[in-house]
């Protein structure tokens, strides 16, 4: 569902472009929160048991399920480490971001 939405920031040139009432016209996908993190989660898919716990607990909805496998969306992952902490297999490692 979120894939259909545009990740574009809406800017009004003048007040004439503004809608008559305050309403939402776009999603927050333009805000690439991945830049917030210092450490990033990396899933070792060999040990993954597809329990879906990381997906279930992600507060940023940044873990997608692609062909039954969890996949981290690094564009938005804020690096909180919840998935690594809750993983029953301990197959998610938090590694330092290289920048």
């Amino acid at each position, binding site marked *: *569902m979120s894939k259909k939405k545009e990740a574009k920031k809406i800017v009004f040139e003048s007040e004439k472009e503004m809608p008559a009432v*305050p309403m939402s016209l*776009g999603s*927050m996908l333009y805000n690439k929160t991945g830049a917030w993190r210092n450490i990033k989660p990396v899933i070792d898919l060999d040990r993954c*048991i*597809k329990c*879906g716990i990381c997906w279930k607990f992600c507060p940023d*909805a940044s873990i997608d399920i692609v062909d*039954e496998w969890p996949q981290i969306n690094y564009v938005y992952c804020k690096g*909180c480490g919840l998935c690594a902490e809750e993983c029953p297999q301990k197959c998610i490692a938090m590694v330092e971001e290289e920048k």
Partner: protein
Amino acid sequence: MSKERKMTLTIPREELMSPGHLACQGCGASLAMRLALKGLGQRTIVCIPACCWAVIDGPFPHSSLDIPIYHCAFETAASSASGVRAGLDMVGDTETTVLAWAGDGGTFDIGLQALSGAAERNDDIIYTCYDNEAYMNTGIQRSSATPVGAWTTTTPVKHYKKERKKDIIGIMAAHGIPYIATASVAYPEDMVKKFKRAREIKGTRFIHVFAPCPAGWKSRPEDTIKLARLAVQTGYFPLYEIEDGEKWTLNLKVKERKPIAEYLKLQGRFRHLKEDEIAMIQQEVDARWAKILKNCGL
């Protein structure tokens, strides 16, 4: 072995909250919204007063939720939701669920009269309080949901909070509304189930969601779920439902409750507490747990 295993999801896959929102790392409140909307589905209108979620959602004209949102004044979450409900009834829309989504400040303190009014009229709304136990959005000020012994910016270590947390469930149960439930982000299946159930019931429904706040509780962001789980396992925040203000059901029977110290020691806001103060808190938790067991007939 794991390659052949099929993935079974225990909660709906539909995602109504998109990433890119402005919550802190490891935010319990954003996870609570994500799970709540999984239970309620697309046909929902949410009224959000001033609270963390007023910020998390994003600045105009953007929104991180795929459903209509109405931002209202701090004290009017319940009355705004009542108004939206009345408007929908006027145009003949009875299917859409109206959700009021307020923080603990907007429920326990500022929005209490509007909530009480809506409950008295038994307006057909779901009122959810996501409880992070202080005014986190404005800088961790004490609210009447802040527990005994906690540090906040307005109850500094020397004068930590001495008063008990307000019994909001007791207040709502006294209104005799059709459905009251407590839910925790550490138990997503239970939480989604409760929202689904609330959706089917008519009248005012109140759901109290426990949402840890790493920034305000001075805990590690990765401990959010651990804290929420410990709160249930220590009996600090039991999961139960109340129907019509009378029929109590305990959803999770904790056989051996963990000591409250385990929950407290993970949070910086309780760091100053001494042994005897922790023992006092333990006594209070025990008393509350005994009361709930009695109400549930156990």
